[in-house]
Structures are given as C-alpha cells and as structure tokens.
C-alpha cells in the first residue's frame, strides 16, 4: 500500500513529540477519557484532532466533553468550560462519573512510577515527615487509578522517575503484584499502558510487572534499561513504534503553538 502524504513519516521530531504521538494513538475514538493536565492533556487533545474526533474528554473541574482549541493551562482553565458538552460540580465528577466506573480511560502522569505501575505524586525521599521533595499531592489521581476501566500513564523515563519501589504510593497501580487490585476491591483494570519518551511498557498478565513491549524509532533497548530503576524485562516480540506522520506532527505543533 502506498503511503499518502499525510501518513508519510515526518523528517525531524523530538522524543517528547514521539511520546505525545504514541500516547495519542492509544486512545480509541468514541471512548471517554479522564484527562490529567500536562502530558496526558497534550496527548488527548492531539488524539481528538487526529484519529479520534469523538473522544469525550473529561477534566476534573467538571467539564464533560471539553473541546479546547488550545491546551488548557489548568483544569480550571475557562477554555474547558466554554467548549464542554456539560459542566457539573466536582463532587458529581467523582460520585457519578469516576466511582461508578463510567470512564473508559484515566490518563495520568507521574513523578515516580514503580515496576508494578504504582504512582507517586506525594513526596520524594525515605522520610515522609522530612521529604527531599514535596510534590503537589494526590489530587484526583487515586480515584482515577482505582475506578477508570483502564489507566494509561504518560511519563518521561529516567532512573529518577522509574524506580523499583515508589517512595509513597499515591495512586495504586498493580500493588505488589497479581491479585492485589482484586484484593483491594479496585474495580478498574489499573495501568494497562505506560508511554514514555523511549518506548511503551505494559503489565505482564501473570506477574503484573511492567514489561517493555515497544521501543520508539532510533531507541536501543540498552538505553531503556539504563533509564529504568529495576531489572527491566523485555517482551520477546518487542515492537517498534511507527514514526510520527506529517499529519500527526502538524496537528501536535499547531496545538502547542496555539497554547504558547
């Protein structure tokens, strides 16, 4: 099959752009996505501008079906309410939309992520009372991680962010392994996909440990190992992410330019 102009791989792009494009591709058209600000919001809005125009974006501030023409600066950015299908109260977001499991995908980022997909956005350091770095805190992420049907995480990969064990479990991924989510009564499937600037990781269905399943173009497996704080397992059928297309890259750059 000959490649159309819009499907042609782009010439030059950054690793961050590859990450956003790969994250956007993971979102299926017509589904609902609970969007965190930052990298998830970039990816979700890119998806809506490319292959998933019917994606329903939900922001914690009560904006359901937001269609921003630029990236929101925060969940309280007026562009979200102005373009939403409906605006409801924050308690309703949690009580009627998150907790009952009505949302298909929770799209999160993380300061620290461990081998079982647990997320830390609370503190860095061994001593909770005297942390090295005090992070913003949980926000709505724990309930997103608990109750969305699936969780996607988009995060830049390094030894600082990809650790054997997070310093503080803010949002539960797969706990300490198989059966933990079920034991805790968490209804959603938890993190099923982690997209980084180097590749893609998915939990092993048996051990629930994050396994490298795809690398982005030009990335060697050793480089991913070097950026991972645990002994990384690599899938036997390791895939390679297709490069960003011109269409994807044009849409992404228009989005970030509109938001500058």
């Amino acid at each position, binding site marked *: 099959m000959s490649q159309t102009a819009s499907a042609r791989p782009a010439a030059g792009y950054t690793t961050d752009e590859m990450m956003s494009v790969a994250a956007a591709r993971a979102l299926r058209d017509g589904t*609902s996505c609970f969007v965190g600000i930052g990298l998830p919001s970039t990816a979700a809005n890119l998806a809506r501008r490319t292959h998933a125009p*019917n994606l*329903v974006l939900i922001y914690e501030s009560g904006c*359901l*079906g937001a269609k921003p023409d630029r990236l929101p600066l925060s969940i309280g950015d007026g562009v979200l*309410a102005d373009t*939403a*299908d*409906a*605006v*409801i109260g924050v308690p309703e977001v949690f*009580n*009627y939309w998150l*907790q*009952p*499991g*009505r949302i298909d995908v929770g799209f999160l980022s993380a300061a620290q992520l461990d081998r079982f997909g647990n997320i830390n956005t609370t503190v860095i350091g061994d001593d909770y009372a005297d942390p090295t770095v005090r992070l913003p805190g949980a926000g709505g992420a724990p309930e997103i991680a608990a109750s969305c049907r699936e969780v996607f995480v988009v995060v830049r990969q390094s030894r600082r962010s990809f650790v054997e064990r997070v310093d503080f479990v803010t949002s539960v991924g797969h706990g300490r392994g198989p059966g933990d989510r079920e034991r805790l009564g968490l209804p959603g499937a938890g993190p099923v996909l982690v997209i980084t600037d180097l590749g893609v990781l998915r939990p092993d269905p048996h051990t629930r440990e994050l396994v490298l399943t795809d690398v982005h173009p030009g990335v060697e497996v050793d480089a991913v190992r070097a950026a991972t704080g645990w002994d990384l397992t690599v899938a036997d059928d390791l895939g390679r992410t297709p490069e960003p297309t011109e269409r994807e890259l044009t849409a992404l750059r228009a989005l970030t330019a509109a938001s500058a």
Partner: protein
Amino acid sequence: MRDKRMTADEVVAELADGMTVGIGGWGSRRKPMALVRAILRSPLRDLTVVSYGGPDVGLLCAAGKVRELVYGFVSLDSIPYDPWFRRARESGELRVRELDEGMLQCGLRAAGHRLPFLPIRAGLGSDVLRVNPDLRTVRSPYDGEEVLAMPPLRLDAALVHLNRADRHGNAQYLGPDPYFDDLFCLAADRRYVSCERIVDTAELTAGGPAQSLLLNRMMVEGVVETPGGAHFTSCVPDYGRDEAFQRRYADAAADPDQWPSFVDQFLSGTETDYQAAVNAARVGA
C-alpha cells in the same frame, strides 16, 4: 458524533415487559408525557414505575401498565390527588413501594454512584420501615449512630423531558428546576430524553449557562423531538401547565362513565392526534 434521534414509538419499542422504568419530572411538572402516551398505545405491560409521581402514574395505571409503583408521592400539584392512582392504590391491585422524596433520591443516588447503599436519616422511626421490611439500618463505625441504609434503585430505563437537546444527547433545562432528571439517567441502563426542540450544539451553549446542560451525550441513548411533549404538565419557560386540561383529565379520571370518552377523544391515536385533539378542545372551550 452519533445521531441519536428517534421517535417516541421507537423508544417504547426498546422497552420490554416487566422492566423497571424511571420517569423524570416532578408531580405535574415537566413529565415526559409524549413518551408516556407512547407507552399507553403500546402492548407494554407489567412495568415497575419509579416516579415523583404526577399524571404519568395515573395514566399508566389507567391503562393497566403498572405492576409495581415506587414513589415518594403522587399528585397533580394544583389538584391534590390523581384519581387513577387513588383508585389503583385503593383497589389493592397495585404493588407499591412507598418511600419519601429523600429516600427515593437517596436510592437513585446510590444507583448512580454504583454503591450498595447510601446512609440517610429519613424514614427512621416511620412506618415506611415496617411496610418495607427489606429496608435495613446500619450503624456508623465512628460514633455508632444508626441510619437507614438506602439500597440503590437501579433502573432498566429512564424517560425524561427537557426543553432543548441536540441530536447527540446533550440536553438542557431552561426552567427553574432540574428536578431529578439527571439522577434518573445516572441510575438507568438506557436513557431517553424527549425535548421541545432539537437544536445545534452551539445553540444549546448559547441558550443558557453551562450548568443548564443537565444531561450530556454519555448519559443518553435516544433523543426525541416532541413539541408539547410534556403537556398537560408544565414545561416552563416554553409553556405552563394546562390547568384547564388537567382539570378535564381529573374529572374524567374520577368518573368511570366519562373515562372511555376521554380516552376516545384524546388517547386513542398518535401524538399528533393528541395534540390536535387538545387544540380542538381548547378552541371549543
């Protein structure tokens, strides 16, 4: 985005005998009467109806559609009693689960939250617990206070009427009160909204504050445009209650000899026939 427009009869065709159906509105206010009328002319039966009851309940009882009724009250507002509900209730043929408005709301909330129950104080010490022996209380693990554990009122389908909607299922109320229509939809598996007018999405947003968009497309399966679809209940600001017609309904409902001619005149044809008959009766009055 998906076009969810359908007719009232198509909505009713998606319902089945024995279903639990929640009906929005409150008393004789913004009831999805065109959808109720579509049920009246369908073969549907043995419904469990959950409602802040108005003439929807009376008409469904009159047509023998209701097996069980779950309600906080049934009233026509300006006329205290609905004669058909009264007759069905007093005949003992109707299975009833009588709650109060708070418990009904709490049950819809529990269903909307997908929780096994929600605590509420309403009903404690009342005979509601005696006549509903399946209702249980629970003690607070913090201070031992006993509260009623209201179970979820899960609905197979919800029928509501709003002022405006777009074809995708975003819907807006323009009057002073949302009633419990969003809760009915959140408690239900299938959700149908009738409206006075289907407009473009942009017109919805321009027509009122964002909060007036009570329903969004994720909580609606079908949209029906039915001008006058709440008649004879109120649908402000599009129209108020048709008090004269409500009186006519109540008088006919109260008199078994009059009722067949009321059915013949107003309820034996399509929705278009109904609206035409109402207009003709108004001109003749």
